[in-house]
């Protein structure tokens, strides 16, 4: 009996109280995770302002602060690498987004012979690691004169060429947009392309943003392909490949803080891009289109 009396208040705990407790627990956990997550970034940021020496050291807070490391970046090939990376990422993301969205729309809306076979084939092909194609890709790019110092167009070609296979996510999203909207627009006088541009894409903002972000970020941070295609020619390197050179055993003592400063600059565009675009993630906009 006494046990029952003790249990009673717990059993009747108010909905508000229980929600407050679970929310508090969740927020504390999230706060801890985000702090752990941010520590390396904060370390790199602080190290980039350390000017007393350029070696890796055993402390985090600089003894002398300054922007020397950032100024030194401009005396190296860093601006060239940065520009290379920016051009590759920008062009690839524009082309890749266009191709992925067209592909997804076609696979979502058109019914043609071999459609399912094509989708299955791409799914299976996508399961092979891209690295497998590296040697043959290099051969092809070398024949086209798109390696080493000319690696930028070569890399754009590599990143864009396979983008049609990334249709799954956006096709899945397009499938959720009622077909009758397409039909209404076509009856209203729109061409298929106008339907995509004026109806489907505005309704698919979250997925378009997702496509742009992923299409921008994967070339932006790529190392393996970029290293391989540029083959040591500084003019064809991207930031990841170029900066990796500073971490060699014989260079790290001179360039460690330089590397940190470069790392901070590399993070800026992606952060800005994400901050600008993230608000579109918030809400889907299909409410009220058709009777639910």
């Amino acid at each position, binding site marked *: 009996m006494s046990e029952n009396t003790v249990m009673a208040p717990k059993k009747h705990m108010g909905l508000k109280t229980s929600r407050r407790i679970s929310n508090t627990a969740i927020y504390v956990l999230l706060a801890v995770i985000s702090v752990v997550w941010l520590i390396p970034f904060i370390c790199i940021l602080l190290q980039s302002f350390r000017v007393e020496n350029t070696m890796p050291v055993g402390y985090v807070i600089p003894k002398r602060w300054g922007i020397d490391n950032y100024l030194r970046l401009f005396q190296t090939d860093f601006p060239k690498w940065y520009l290379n990376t920016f051009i590759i990422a920008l062009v690839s993301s524009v082309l890749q987004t266009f191709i992925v969205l067209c592909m997804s729309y076609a696979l979502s809306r058109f*019914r043609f012979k071999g459609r399912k076979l094509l989708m299955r084939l791409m799914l299976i092909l996508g399961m092979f690691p891209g690295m497998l194609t590296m040697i043959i890709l290099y051969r092809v790019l070398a024949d086209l004169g798109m390696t080493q110092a000319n690696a930028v167009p070569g890399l754009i070609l590599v990143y864009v060429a396979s983008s049609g296979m990334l249709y799954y996510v956006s096709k899945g999203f397009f499938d959720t947009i*009622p077909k*009758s*909207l397409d*039909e*209404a*627009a*076509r*009856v*209203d*006088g*729109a*061409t298929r392309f*106008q339907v995509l541009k*004026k*109806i489907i894409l*505005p*309704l698919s903002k979250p997925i378009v943003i997702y496509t742009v972000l992923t299409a921008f970020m994967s070339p932006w941070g790529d190392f393996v392909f970029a290293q391989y295609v540029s083959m040591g020619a500084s003019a064809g390197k991207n930031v990841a490949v170029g900066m990796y050179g500073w971490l060699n055993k014989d260079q790290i003592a001179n360039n460690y803080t330089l590397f940190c400063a470069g790392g901070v600059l590399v993070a800026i565009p992606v952060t800005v891009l994400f901050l600008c675009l993230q608000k579109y993630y918030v809400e889907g*906009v*299909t*409410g*009220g*289109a*058709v*009777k639910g």
Partner: protein
Amino acid sequence: MASVKLTGVKKIYDNKVTAVHDFNLDIKDKEFVVFVGPSGCGKSTTLRMVAGLEDISEGTVEIDGEVVNDLQPKDRDIAMVFQNYALYPHMTVYDNIAFSLRLKKMPEDEIYEKVTNAAEILGITDYLTRKPRALSGGQRQRVAIGRAMVRNSKVFLMDEPLSNLDAKLRNQMRAEIILLRQKLNTTFIYVTHDQTEAMTLGDRIVIMQDGYIEQVGTPTEVFEMPRNIFVAEFIGAPKMNMIPTKLTRSGDNYTVSPFGARLPVDGEKRELLLEGDVGSREIILGVRPEHIVLADSASESSIPCTLEVNEMMGSELHLHVYTEDGTRLIVRVPTLNLSSAQRSGLVAGARLNITFSGKVMHFFDAESKLNLCCGE
């Protein structure tokens, strides 16, 4: 303003299922034609073929004399209202209605005039700046109609536009569509599964089943002279009672003998049977619930039965009765004609006598299910 002609139209899907068989119909300029039938009868598919949203497997569709089989929907000069409204959710009501006009690159001031004019007719002027999600079902359907209205198209297609609305709103919108039709004065093709909508809206009704046209006619024609049992049961609510019995001809006189009663056939029906030289045979006798009356006492022409359920509908009673052999029939009795004593006697288990006149009977051949008075 245009005529629409469908000749031998067929729809065969990739999985070899035939949704529409040999559909032939001539829709006159400014006519309001309703396609009606149960789900899956091919009515929406036919409409979508006219709209250009489905390929035509065989046959031709002509709008205003021009074959449009290979024309894109945008080139057919049609307007369409969808069952689920299909409003563009990211646009305001104004932009939704203006969408087609902007695609035509019409000047903005002209668009403004057209949109506000349509909004006024439909009573949605106050909602022009709202997004569809902030509207009720009825308002959304008005916007959808407005979007179709401003285009001044040759043909106005409506695919079950009222079926997502509640009963009260449906009645109201039905009346508004009749008014709209008078204002627009254009050719309408309207698809519905609701026979009341078909009867009230259509100049002509096309009744379909399993991809075939069962009958084409005015509301009065299909109600009074249904071509077969399917049409007879589909049109009218509650549906027509069907009684298997025998039609006997002696000389120029016909009698039917449902449940042992002897009922003579007279009036126009007798003339039509004579015209078709119909002999004695097994038939299905059709009688509408509103044509059956309660007899005061048992007689040669009355059928004894037992009351099972009494549904009070307000202005009338729907009496579900069963005869001695267990056949179930429905009788519609106006409450106005009943004394309170009579009404209180209509309880489950009550014994009743019913009868009907020879003028209101429908005679269907027991085998072919066709109406014997239609001369086929």
